[in-house]
């Protein structure tokens, strides 16, 4: 929801700074192109081998089915694995594909190859509607809500008399009928579909949208605060995943030859991609492929061998496979195999130590470059393209007037009025429960005020969602650090930078300058899960800076909490540089002493009211403030 084009701040490092390493380094994608190409090639090759091995035997149907499920599971993985939105209702889209392909053939003689695309369109529309209805819900609620849609579709399909729609078999209908004499043909089509879904998945992972998906999966609120419109990202992912599922459904109809509501809209059909993906490894490219490639042939073979006597054996195997994977290695087969492979490789290769050494040296290189860079480059940040009028020092950046908020009957804030000017560092202090964090949540858009008005860079923000406010030039940190786990440090910053930059290159330059600004360039390629508390805080600050951009405003929520002296000194220095470069800061802290040295102004909150504002000296003498703090230990 980028509400206005006129105010889209972009922080960009100076282009002429050849000394600065930032302009020459990119941010590596979490999936490298070569690894993606290898995996796609493996799928193509494996598919072709299977097709030719099966030849004209009945096993060819198993090959076709396997490829269809590879496509279906990979499509489900896009919304569930990449975006982290578990659905249990994908058969809604699968079934729409199956019904469109068959019904259009029956009604108007449109061959399934074309009818399929009507199904894709129908699935995309259905996904948009379903997304709008359910994606406000989070986590489990979302998953449960999606269960009902295919059931509703099944009820209507039955009601409309589509209990059993058969696919007209036309041996001489050619490729477009999907049922040519040669069963290999349908397998090739299915292989093409599987490849298509996987290529879309790779393209997605390697796009800026993919970075947003990763952020959303990891922490929805932090993603929103980094300028990611999480609702839109979710709906896009769902629509894409649904459309691709419909392709799989359309092909499936030509294999099963009969389409029934129970089969294509059933709970089983929703559960299958879940099973296969989780078994193989959710959120990975190879996971759903491997899961389907193992489970489908296995269950088909069991059905063919024992189907007459024990028809439920394959279902049992599905259940047991899921249960075993979840209890033994919950990440799925792919991560498990990778970790085993890594262990074997490590123990065999003495080069591991050398690798580590190389890593250390390159890191110290980076640190050196950073030192050289930050001392000379006073300004990494370029004025935004959107706010073309340069912000005058002292002009108001943030204006809030008469903000009030109550939770239930408790008034948390009343009549809060304050301003933050350009190049100003303002500290909000107040005892516990004074309403500081609520005020922050209101300014950053996570909580809507009951009354009052807010303006950021001259734009009214009352009705904007957090990502839109972030895109105006506001970067925030959280009281407890909220970074995107599973991503590297630089990727974390990149999420913020992407929200405000036009292209990935510009964003990666901004991300590198931000991470150098806080002295973490040497840690940039590490996963955040391995960083210390102090480093995490600094990284979160870097992300906030990347979001805010030049002349932007930082909202820092108790950012000095739990830091060593060295760490806090480094942070404060970065903030002073930030101000020098035209930025502003609004910081919450319990303790006055930590901030008295560097803030221009304090705003004192008590019981949801502003009781004093002024320079640190004035505030320290203010009687109201002393009263509010009496008995409180200040200067921990």
């Amino acid at each position, binding site marked *: 929801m980028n509400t206005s084009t006129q105010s889209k701040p972009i922080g960009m490092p100076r282009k002429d700074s050849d000394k600065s390493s930032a302009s020459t380094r990119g941010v590596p994608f979490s999936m490298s192109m070569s690894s993606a190409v290898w995996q796609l090639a493996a799928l193509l090759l494996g598919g072709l081998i299977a097709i030719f091995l099966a030849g004209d035997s009945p096993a060819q149907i198993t090959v076709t089915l396997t490829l269809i499920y590879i496509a279906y599971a990979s499509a489900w993985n896009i919304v*569930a694995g990449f975006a*982290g939105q*578990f659905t249990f209702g994908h058969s809604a889209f699968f079934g729409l594909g199956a019904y469109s392909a068959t019904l259009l053939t029956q009604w108007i003689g449109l061959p399934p190859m074309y009818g399929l695309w009507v199904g894709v369109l129908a699935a995309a529309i259905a996904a948009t509607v379903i997304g709008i*209805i*359910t994606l*406000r*819900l*989070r*986590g*489990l*609620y979302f*998953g*449960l*809500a999606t*269960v*009902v849609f295919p*059931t*509703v579709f099944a*009820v*209507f399909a*039955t*009601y409309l008399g589509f209990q059993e729609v058969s696919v007209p078999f036309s041996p001489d209908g050619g490729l477009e009928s999907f049922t040519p004499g040669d069963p290999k043909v349908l397998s090739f089509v299915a292989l093409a579909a599987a490849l298509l879904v996987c290529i879309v998945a790779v393209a997605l992972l390697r796009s800026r949208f993919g970075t947003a998906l990763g952020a959303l*999966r*990891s*922490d*929805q609120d932090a993603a929103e605060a980094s300028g990611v419109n999480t609702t839109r990202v979710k709906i896009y992912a769902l629509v894409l995943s649904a459309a691709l599922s419909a392709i799989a459904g359309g092909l499936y109809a030509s294999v099963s030859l009969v389409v029934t509501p129970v089969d294509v809209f059933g*709970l089983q059909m929703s*559960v299958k991609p*879940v*099973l296969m993906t*989780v078994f193989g490894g*959710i*959120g990975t490219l190879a996971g759903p492929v491997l899961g389907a490639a193992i489970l489908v042939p296995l269950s088909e073979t069991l059905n063919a061998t024992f189907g007459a006597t*024990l*028809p*439920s*054996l394959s*279902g*049992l195997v*599905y*259940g*047991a*496979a*899921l*249960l*075993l994977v*979840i*209890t033994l290695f*919950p*990440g799925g087969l792919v991560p498990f195999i990778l970790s085993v492979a890594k262990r074997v490789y490590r123990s065999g290769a003495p080069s591991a130590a050398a690798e580590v050494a190389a890593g250390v040296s390159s890191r110290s290189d980076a640190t050196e470059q950073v030192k050289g860079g930050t001392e000379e480059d006073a300004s990494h940040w370029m004025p935004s393209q959107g706010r073309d009028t340069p912000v005058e020092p002292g002009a108001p950046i943030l204006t809030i007037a008469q903000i009030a908020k109550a939770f239930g009957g408790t008034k948390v804030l009343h009549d809060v009025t304050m301003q933050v000017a350009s190049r100003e560092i303002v500290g909000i202090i107040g005892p516990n429960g004074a309403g500081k964090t609520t005020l922050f949540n209101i300014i950053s858009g996570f909580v809507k005020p009951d009354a009052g008005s807010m303006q950021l860079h001259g734009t009214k923000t009352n009705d904007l969602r957090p990502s839109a406010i972030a895109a105006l030039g506001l970067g925030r940190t959280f009281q407890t650090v909220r970074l995107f786990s599973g991503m590297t440090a630089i990727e974390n910053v990149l999420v913020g930078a992407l929200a405000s930059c036009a292209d990935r290159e510009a964003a990666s330059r901004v991300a590198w300058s931000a991470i150098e600004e806080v002295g973490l360039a040497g840690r940039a390629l590490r996963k955040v899960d391995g960083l210390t508390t102090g480093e995490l805080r600094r990284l979160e600050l870097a992300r906030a800076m990347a979001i805010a951009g030049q002349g932007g405003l930082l909202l820092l929520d108790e950012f000095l909490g739990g830091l060593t002296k060295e760490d806090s000194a480094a942070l404060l220095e970065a903030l002073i540089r930030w101000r020098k470069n035209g930025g502003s800061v609004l910081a919450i802290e319990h303790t006055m002493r930590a901030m008295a040295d560097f803030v221009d102004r304090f705003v004192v909150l008590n019981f949801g009211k502003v009781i004093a504002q002024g320079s640190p000296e004035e505030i320290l003498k203010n009687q109201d403030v002393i009263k509010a703090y009496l008995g409180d230990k200040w200067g921990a």
Partner: protein
Amino acid sequence: MRAAGVRPNFYKESVKDMYVLQLVLSGLQQGGVLALLSMGLALMFGVLRVVNFAQADFMMLGMYGAILMYAAFQLNFAETSLLLVIPAFIVGWLVYELIIRRVAQAKLTSTPEHAQLLATLGLSLIIQNTAEMVWGATPLNLESSQQLSMWHIGSLSIDQPRTIAFGIAIAIGIIMLLVLRGTYIGRAVRAAASDQEAASYVGVNVRRVYGATFGVAVAISVIVGSVLVSYYPATPLAGNDFILLMFTAVILGGLGNVMGAMVGGLLLGLIQSLSQLFIPLELNSAVVFVLFLVMMLVRPSGIFGEVNRL
């Protein structure tokens, strides 16, 4: 009922009234069973944050249990459920210890509950397919004399097994609520539900509470099954007829809210039954789910919300 004599077309009117009354009765009967099933689901979610996909399959096992018991020892369903309740409790506890607890740490997505949900999904598939191997897919009926007995009150006919099932369901439901609200055990359960860590500091054995909760929830399902089979044919997939309705009832009442689930279940039974007045029978289940979606849109936290969960 209206004063029938005053109206000229009183006969027609009263027939319609009777029909509505009959629908209300059957809706309540169906809803009572659903209410108890949903309460088990809600209890499990409220305490452990586990959405149990296998909950309705335990009910199916109870159905077969009752059939076997009747065939072997001519036990009626009340006797069967008394007999099955302890083994069911133990099975539930074992499921918790062997599966749920193990996957509690697994983090598949940012929603930690997904791993447990998937584990119960796997369990559900195993139970259903094993049942099909053992008992076959053909529906089995309880061959007892109670089956077709009716009470007649005026032109109303009241199905005995259904009414008894309703009575048992509501009785157990109320006992469960009383235990949760009024006893030490109930307080321990609610403490563990609201904050696992804090509860363990004040001496609640959280692991035991969790295991026992799982056991109770499974036992409830088994009881429902053994009661239900007196009028509902047993099939290995019988659970699938109920699981979505159970989710709907639980969401209606507020996820994890045990009393909410009871009201949600009753309400759902009534709505399903009364919607026959306006909507063709084939679309009956669609009504329920459309209602569910409207609820999701208007008030996703359910009628009673999640605040006072248990």
